[in-house]
């Protein structure tokens, strides 16, 4: 069967960083392929390379035999590729119908009035995606799911041979997910093909014919959705290997012990709901892990606690409600976050980064704290005066944690510290955390996709999925109850 999309040896480098390395795959007409991977795996870059938004350094992208690699995106679009971006950006001052009509216009400078059939076609497309009733409304008045439908409408307007969809179900309710799945599935009946890109294998497993898993820019596994889900390498990359827990001394967490108490927390990004009525508590001295795949909402949860995003519900720290506090106040008050992006000062040295962390302390205390941290993370000592951005991934992570610890936090929030790190670094990190727990009374809230890392230290575990907690309990029970359901 002739292939609709043929990708061969696709490579993209950003300076020294290889984002995509020698990716090859193909899609046949009528097929739905899922491209999955965690943050930083290169899946979004592959999509952008196909669409021409980025130019590849090497490789071939053939659409029905025509190599479009390196073409500007508008030419690739006219060649028969459509894309649904992750974030909806319609023209706000135009109606839904006009937004769809835009997608049907020819790339002409002189055609001032749209051809008559465009109007009918726009209506037909609107009906097909379920927007038939709201064609005269403006995007600002529509609910989130309809905005996503509009994006889909614009992508399929000119009947492209291939549709690329980035995170098709993010922010949708279960019912909306079903509708969307049907819409996407209907596309294959016309002999067209779909490439879905997502973090979550589980979410798109039902929809795809085949799946490909990526990690750090490279192909990891391919096959049917089931095969990829159960693939050893994929499981290791996603959840870190076999789930092992050490016996932990039972802790009695009386309600009065709650250092952090979050009740009915909800967060909205525009119309999309990222967290839904989430409640969690962390006792003083406890180590709590929140596990969940990328996109589940861990970062949103932590950002809400740190005051970086607005939220509804209540967040209490040490029995005081945090509402109305600025993010900097919350950090000075004892909750320090080490985010997934680390947010280091790249051009400044290791020493300077750490010093900034200790700026709120009197000089003597800051110096002592620095000493102690350099003992805890000896590798930072040797890289003392190096610029932060010249450190390796693992070293940067340790610097980020050390810098956060310079503030002597009572609650340390760690968001995905293991992302993109080699196993030997994970070992070091794990040991550092252990030592931290043994020598101080620090409380830790950890968010991780890598269950193998998250479990051994934890006193309690929460499982976050699509913005909601679906399980809570201690690590022993997790392996027995939630472990299998986690990926599949």
């Amino acid at each position, binding site marked *: 069967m002739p292939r609709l999309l043929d990708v061969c040896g696709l490579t993209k480098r950003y300076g020294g960083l290889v984002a995509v390395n020698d990716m090859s795959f193909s899609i046949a007409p009528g097929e739905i392929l899922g491209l999955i991977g965690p943050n930083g795996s290169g899946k979004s870059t592959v999509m952008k390379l196909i669409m021409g938004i980025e130019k590849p350094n090497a490789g071939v992208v053939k659409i029905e035999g025509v190599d479009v690699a390196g073409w500007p995106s*508008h030419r690739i*679009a006219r060649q028969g590729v459509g894309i649904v971006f992750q974030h909806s950006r319609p023209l706000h*001052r135009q109606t839904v119908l006009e937004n769809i009509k*835009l997608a049907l*216009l020819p*790339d*002409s400078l002189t055609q*001032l009035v749209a051809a008559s059939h465009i109007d009918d076609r726009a209506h037909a497309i609107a009906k097909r995606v379920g927007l038939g009733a709201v064609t005269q409304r403006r995007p*600002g008045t529509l609910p989130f799911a309809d905005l996503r439908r509009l994006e889909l409408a614009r992508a399929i307007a000119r009947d492209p041979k291939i549709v690329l969809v980035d995170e098709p179900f993010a922010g949708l309710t279960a019912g909306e997910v079903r509708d969307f799945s049907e819409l996407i599935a209907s596309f294959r009946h016309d002999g067209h093909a779909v490439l879905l890109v997502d973090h979550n294998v589980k979410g798109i497993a039902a929809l795809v014919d085949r799946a490909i898993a990526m990690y750090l820019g490279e192909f990891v596994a391919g096959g049917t959705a089931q095969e990829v889900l159960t693939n050893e390498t994929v499981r290791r990359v996603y959840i870190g290997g076999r789930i092992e827990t050490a016996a932990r001394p039972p802790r009695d967490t009386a309600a009065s012990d709650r250092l952090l108490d979050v009740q009915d927390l909800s967060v909205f990004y525009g119309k999309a709901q990222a967290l839904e009525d989430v409640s969690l508590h962390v006792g003083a001295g406890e180590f709590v892990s929140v596990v969940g795949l990328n996109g589940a909402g861990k970062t949103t949860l932590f950002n809400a606690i740190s005051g970086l995003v607005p939220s509804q519900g209540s967040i209490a720290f040490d029995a005081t409600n945090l509402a109305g506090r600025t993010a900097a106040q919350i950090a000075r008050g004892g909750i320090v976050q080490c985010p997934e992006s680390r947010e280091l000062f790249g051009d400044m040295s290791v020493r300077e980064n750490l010093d900034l962390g200790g700026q709120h302390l009197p000089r003597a205390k800051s110096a002592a704290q620095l000493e102690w941290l350099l003992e805890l993370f000896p590798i930072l000592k040797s890289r003392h005066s190096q610029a932060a951005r010249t450190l390796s991934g693992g070293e940067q992570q340790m610097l980020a944690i050390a810098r956060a610890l310079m503030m002597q936090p009572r609650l340390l929030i760690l968001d995905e510290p293991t992302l993109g790190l080699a196993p030997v670094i994970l070992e070091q990190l794990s040991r550092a955390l252990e030592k931290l727990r043994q020598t101080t009374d620090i409380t830790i809230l950890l968010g991780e996709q890598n269950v193998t890392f998250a479990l051994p230290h934890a006193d309690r575990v929460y499982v976050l999925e699509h913005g909601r907690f679906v399980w809570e309990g201690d690590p022993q029970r997790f392996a027995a109850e939630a472990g299998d359901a986690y990926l599949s």
Partner: protein
Amino acid sequence: MKAFAIPLLVAALLALLPLGVGGYVLGLLTLAYYFGVFAMSWDLLFGFAGEVNFGPSFLIGLGAYSAGLLNHSFHLPIWICVIAGAFTAVVGGVLLAVPALRLSGPYFGLITLVAVLLLQNAIVLFAGITGGEIGLDIPDIISIDDSTNYWVALGFMTVSGMILFGLSRSSVGLILQASGQDAIQAGALGFNVTKHKLAAFCVSALFSGLAGAMLIFYMGTASPGTVVEIGVGVQVIIAAVLGGRRTILGAALGAIFLIVAGELLRPLGQLSTFVVSAVALLVILFFPGGFLGTALHRGEG
């Protein structure tokens, strides 16, 4: 086509003014109408293509001076000079835009500013031909009669306005808007964004140059202080933002408001510019949609 009705009605009413109003007011409004075309051309570029031109007086000046020089040195008839002026402005605009569109944000703005300064310096440098800072004497003028000048200006503004407004509402205008708002998305929908922005620049240059040329044939002189000043360019920007960006017609309103207000505030002397700038600043802070934009506000979401 409903949207054209009200502006045309207003234009028709304005055409009746010379029957009851004196030469002084007519002269003021004539100036304002030419200014209106400057501002509307600017809005096409900014409000739709999303490119901020900090030196519209570059295009205006090119049109004005090329038309003026042809008339002054070669005594060519007005209408040939005006067309030549517009053409020169378009060529100048393309030469500026092709490389400039590769630049982002502040750099594009800087280049447009530099273009004005370079033109200014060139005029002063070649003062022998151009009359330097004192200006160029234009032998031919459109008319001595205030009413005739008024109607010519009004007619010109109305026709230009209808064309520019029509463009903004057309399919091409829609593509332009998409290009300005989200170039990546527009590219993914199959539109060559650079091509469209360049075209917008040309249209803007055409009307700016045309208006600049016509202006000097109304005033009878051309000098850097009136058509190539950065200050003039700033006034154009203020007019468009005051009137309401992305409305085209709002820009004309803003221009008329500015010229009339500047005149009414003349008794204040030096402070008149201060007051106008202050008002413009307040409008930016509290009514970023401008007069027309705020009036037509329709829950953009």
